């Protein structure tokens, strides 16, 4: 099952230049800028670093940033799957239009998205004014952060699940039905397990995007310290105060947490796609 590129007998030429270029490119675009973050942080003493990254206001922002991003990714996992399902399985007028709408969060400048969401969800906005009597406030609360992060993460889940769903063979579902499974059982026991790897990928992408999101959130969040202030905003604040090392210190913590979480999701995904072939 495993094809390992070997020196003597590989069909694909150019393994070495391709790998060399890949490493060079990744270094230039990803590794060097990121290592600069780490280097800059080393200007701080360990105590100063620790004091910066564990300040109560910073800790509250981690909770909000990662918590809201996870929640948004979960919401996107569920509803993104639903959207992909509807787009693949049913035929209805306007399907192409809806299919195109899905990509809008990709294309829209995030600030525009943030302002639009704020306008709609503020207490006198279209949806906000309707939610307000029920005691639900969205704009300028952590809930608003979740809404914004859900908005920008949606396309990831839809676009990763959609092609897999399209390729799913109808025969497996027919087989399940002929064996007596009802629709719910067919979905949970046959369809969903095949979609897991793609769903996890979409989830990870949506989560990663949400953790780093800045533009759309700062408009709707209200940015109250300890309540609705996201970590990227704290970094910007530090930069505006010329506290570069403080900013990179927080960035380093974010990077490490994100990396560990993404690694865990990747591991889960590898496990879910490889356990049936061992």
């Amino acid at each position, binding site marked *: 099952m495993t094809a390992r590129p070997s020196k003597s007998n590989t069909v694909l030429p150019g393994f070495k230049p391709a790998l060399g270029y890949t490493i060079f490119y990744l270094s230039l675009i990803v590794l060097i800028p990121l290592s600069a973050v780490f280097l800059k942080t080393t200007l701080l003493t360990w105590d100063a670093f620790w004091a910066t990254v564990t300040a109560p206001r910073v800790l509250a922002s981690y909770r909000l940033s990662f918590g809201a991003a996870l929640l948004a990714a979960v919401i996107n996992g569920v509803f993104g799957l639903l959207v992909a399902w509807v787009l693949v399985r049913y035929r209805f007028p306007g399907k192409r239009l809806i299919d195109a709408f899905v990509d809008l969060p990709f294309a829209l400048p995030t600030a525009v998205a943030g302002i639009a969401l704020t306008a709609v969800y503020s207490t006198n906005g279209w949806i906000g004014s309707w939610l307000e009597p029920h005691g639900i406030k969205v704009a300028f609360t952590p809930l608003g952060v979740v809404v914004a992060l859900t908005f920008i993460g949606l396309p990831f889940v839809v676009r990763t699940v959609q092609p897999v769903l399209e390729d799913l063979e109808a025969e497996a579902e027919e*087989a399940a039905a002929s064996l007596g499974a009802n629709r719910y059982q067919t979905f949970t*026991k046959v369809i969903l397990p095949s979609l897991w790897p793609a769903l996890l990928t979409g989830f990870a992408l949506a989560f990663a995007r949400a953790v780093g999101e800045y533009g759309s959130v700062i408009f709707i969040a209200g940015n109250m310290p300890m309540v609705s202030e996201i970590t990227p905003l704290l970094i910007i604040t530090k930069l505006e105060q010329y506290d570069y090392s403080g900013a990179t210190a927080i960035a380093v913590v974010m990077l490490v947490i994100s990396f560990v979480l993404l690694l865990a999701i990747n591991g889960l995904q590898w496990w879910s796609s490889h*356990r049936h072939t061992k």
Partner: protein
Amino acid sequence: MSIEIRNVRKNFGSFSALNDISLDVPSGELVALLGPSGCGKTTLLRIIAGLESPDQGQVLFNGEDTTERHVRERQVGFVFQHYALFRHMTVFENVAFGLRVRPKQTRPTEAEIHRRVHELLNLVQLDWLADRYPPQLSGGQRQRIALARALAVEPKVLLLDEPFGALDAQVRKDLRRWLRRLHDELHITSVFVTHDQEEALEVADRIVVMNKGVVEQIGTPGEVYDNPATPFVYHFLGNVNLFHSRVHAGFARIGELELEAPEHAAAADAAALAYVRPHDIDIQREPDGASAFKAEVSFIHPIGPIVRLELRREDNSEIVEAEVTRERFRELDLKDGESVYIKPRAMKLFLAEAA
């Protein structure tokens, strides 16, 4: 359980896949739906299963109308051409699937499920693969697992869609004999779809030959092979030579040859096509009265136990294909370009209107 199909029609857009099909499958028989691709045989099978619904007509199981019944409730075992195994489940879980999805009241206990699944895996001789996943199995193994999975729900009817179509020649042969033996043990009413006449002739109790959405002939393998009802059936069940002839009062005239055709005693100087199988062509070195064509040997292909010959008729240069055993070939000691005398040993005449 017997299956009756009553006047079933099915169209896909303007394409008529099934055109007024009626068919009986008696309880316990193994029936083959045989035909070229696009003849509607798979559609018919899927309608029997309930995976497709007919535009018109009925499907009856044991005399009971099941046309409107969902596939879930029909108690059919369906085996797909490409197996359709659940990739993310072990072989054991695949076979157990049908038992596990039963509602709580009728679901067997875990111990009972284990017993049943291992019994079925033993039946298909693959118990040692219980913990593997489908992608780790060979095609033949997958198909046997698919069969075990279908049998797990104790279906009243077993339906197989080109069950050996995706397998290589040797595995196909083994597996179809094995299927025949299995059927002799279980006696479950079974219908399988195939485009391979050899497979149908070897395995089935009865063959339903289909073409372009209609049934051409139903009969035992012997009947359809020896007594094809239509020119299509004759063509489809093996190689054939065609001779233009005229039939008059019980005699058929092919070129200079006059042969008895008692079944067409009433025909008066009618055009007809004579169908002759290559192995029904008799070859002689010496003329045997006037009842043979003179022909020239133009090609000799030895194929395993038989030798296939191409012969060019002297009177009109048409090519006649003949098959002789190796023994007979050695006896005749034929070479390219030699002249021989040939005549049909047996033939089937179809009058021009029917052909």
